């Protein structure tokens, strides 16, 4: 395993948190109620905090003396290794919740395993993040149940969001070449092992929420190889604007 394998692996974990954090940040001041607005931005803050820890570690590993800002703001689209689900837009509150829940369950299972990593830095970040993600999952799971099992309209919207986002869940368990090398070295997690537990947990909750489980055999993929949906360019344009316009700017 080379340092570059490890850096790429860290991107595949941290970029998920960065892009989802950015998406949730867009909702600041636009949440459906004050409480949910605050909750979503709190979750964004946790995710961005976790991202910083990972990127700071990338900085230590890199030969070019990268800073966390370089890593977050100065890569091109193909260099981001996040899964496609986290870049999907905030279509309505049901989409925000479905996207969050689908990611949170995976995130929790991943961190549980990453806590056993042979790499002390990843282990420490996982132990810290795990405590936060337990709250994220509870929030998104509660809302999914409430909306699914709520009014006729909330049920219909929740079902629609689940139908549309379901096709992005399979990618969570894909392994690119770097993931495989790093997992084999005992530093990373073999995502394929999480899949069964994931679908059991998600399907049990959907059932409680009276949401039908979509049956599509076709799933979307590409993010882990840097091939993103059309939404990604817009996210980066927004997110990178300041650093691209005023290179090396500092707060």
């Amino acid at each position, binding site marked *: 395993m080379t340092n570059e394998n490890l850096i790429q692996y860290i991107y595949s974990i941290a970029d998920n948190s960065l892009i989802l954090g950015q998406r949730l940040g867009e909702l600041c001041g636009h949440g459906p109620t004050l*409480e*949910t607005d*605050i*909750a979503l931005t*709190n*979750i964004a*803050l*946790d*995710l*961005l*905090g*976790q991202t*910083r*820890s990972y990127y700071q570690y990338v900085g230590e590993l890199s030969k070019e003396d990268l800073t966390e800002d370089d890593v977050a703001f100065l890569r091109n689209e193909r260099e981001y290794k996040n899964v496609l689900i986290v870049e999907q837009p905030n279509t309505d509150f049901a989409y925000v919740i479905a996207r969050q829940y689908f990611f949170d369950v995976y995130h929790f299972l991943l961190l549980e395993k990453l806590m056993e990593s042979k790499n*002390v830095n990843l*282990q*420490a*970040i996982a*132990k*810290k*993040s795990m*405590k*936060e993600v*337990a*709250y994220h999952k*509870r*929030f998104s799971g*509660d809302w999914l149940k409430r909306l699914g099992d709520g009014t006729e309209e909330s049920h219909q919207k929740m079902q629609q969001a689940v139908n549309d986002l379901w096709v992005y869940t399979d990618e969570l368990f894909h392994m690119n070449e770097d993931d495989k090398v790093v997992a084999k070295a005992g530093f990373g997690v073999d995502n394929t092992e999480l899949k069964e537990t994931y679908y059991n947990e998600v399907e049990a909750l959907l059932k409680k929420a009276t949401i039908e489980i979509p049956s599509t055999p076709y799933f979307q993929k590409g993010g882990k190889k840097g091939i993103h949906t059309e939404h990604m360019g817009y996210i980066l344009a927004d997110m990178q604007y300041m650093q691209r316009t005023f290179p090396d700017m500092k707060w």
Partner: protein
Amino acid sequence: MNPTQDIDPKLFSILKSVPDPEIPVLSIFDLGVVRSAKLLENNRVKVEITPTYSGCPAMDVIGDDVKKALQENGYQPEVKLILSPAWTTDWMTEEGKQALKEYGIAPPESAEADKKALLGNEQIIPCPQCESTKTKLVSQFSSTACKAMFKCQDCEETFDYFKCLI
């Protein structure tokens, strides 16, 4: 002092005088974010602090405040942020919990109670204003990531609860 903290007794009172920037009734010492403070030669001091939450925006301010307090006392401080072991509400001192309650924030309940709540069971947090146990969770997330929002059904006040991290 918490058994997991490693703090030079000479620095004790200085660190105790630094308030948490968001909850000023609580010192960062009582909060348990100061993990170690060592006195080295030539009045140099090495302090390690750990965040309550990964994205806690107060960490930079806490670091600066610690530096300032030590400098004012003639020391040359160096502050380092560490992640491991991860912060837990168990590190909050009893004095700290009391101060929180008097300030109107319900202090963290036992780790066991929160664990049960995370697993989906009801959690009872007494109201810090009137002590009633008839309270209701309004939101898992409140004014900061480390707090949840509750409402008392007797005195009808909403209040913050400092969530357990275990």
